[in-house]
């Protein structure tokens, strides 16, 4: 059990570092948004691992809320890119 969560934590650390690299490097806004989404999903996965490891289910609702938030931020950034594109066209 503990071994499994340790391995999982290692995988998630790799995912988080890779996402952070892409957030910093970009190159486009959309790239950064995809990377931020990936970072958030890494966090959600980490929360699941944490609940599994400790057996403490206090924060299990956060899983649902985090997944919802990912959607909202993605839509906002998508609208922003579209607005930028139509501004350029004018």
């Amino acid at each position, binding site marked *: 059990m503990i071994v499994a969560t340790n391995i999982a934590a290692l995988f*998630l650390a790799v995912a988080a570092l890779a996402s952070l690299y892409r957030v910093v490097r970009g190159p*486009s806004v959309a790239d950064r948004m995809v990377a931020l989404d990936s970072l958030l999903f890494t966090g959600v*996965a*980490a929360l699941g691992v944490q609940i*599994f490891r400790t057996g403490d289910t206090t924060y299990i*609702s956060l899983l649902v809320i985090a997944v919802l938030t990912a*959607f909202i931020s993605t*839509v906002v950034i998508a609208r922003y890119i579209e607005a930028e594109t139509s501004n350029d066209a004018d």
Partner: protein
Amino acid sequence: MTPIDLIAAVAVVGGSLLVALGGIGLLRFPDVFTRMHGATKAATIGVVGTTLAAALEAGSPRGVLILLLVVALLFLSGPLGMSLLARAAYHDHETPRSPLTAELPFELPIPEVTGSSRRGGPSYALGVWLFIVWIALFGSVAPNVVIGGIVVAAIVTFAFRRLSPHWPVALAHPVRTAEFLVFFGWQVVRSTWDVVWSLRLDRHLLRPAIIEYPISMTTRSEVTLLMNSISFTPGTVALELHDQLLYVHVLNAHDPAPVIAEINALETRIMAMYGQARQIETG
């Protein structure tokens, strides 16, 4: 160690591995569209894995409800957000696109648009669903929680009454719905493997493509379900819908034929799920 512990441990390791592979996709794939396939799709399935473990650990009905909620939200909102982002990036000329991307028109007679009548009125199924979400989040059935849930569900259902979707008639037929879910689940598992397998490829060996696919479905609910299913499946993102032509970005399409066959199979099944509603509308 019980069998359930074992399943949970496998789900934790497997799920995290998928999230890590998605992260590696962010590093290795050449442009934002291809990165989406790895990062958000593989990672989405990974999150389902770790949530499954958490739900098994909770071992309560609430844990199961949370798991179902996360899966439903990942399916409903995740692909929608990604499609919107992909669409914005597709139209934005400042977003770099892999020079190897091929644009492939797929020749099929464009079906006649018959249009559909929209009925108004609140969707009671939506209200019930919101109530279930409320109870799951609070994790209790105390009277004040139940009353609060009913009030909020009623207000939201009323506020969005004009946007209420057509529900697939097949939802009333558990066997047909289960058949679709099994078919779709298998599709997702297989294409997740495809995406993971293409991680080994060098950038210049990857052949992303934008496919043009004429759809024959007409109601918004059907099209939404199809685009969501396409975007949820790793390896394909729905980009744009224009005059009954659906544009889909494919991660690796040396041969577009199987991808088109997959989209066609999905479309046929979704239309079958709505089958009866269409007959009523046209008749």
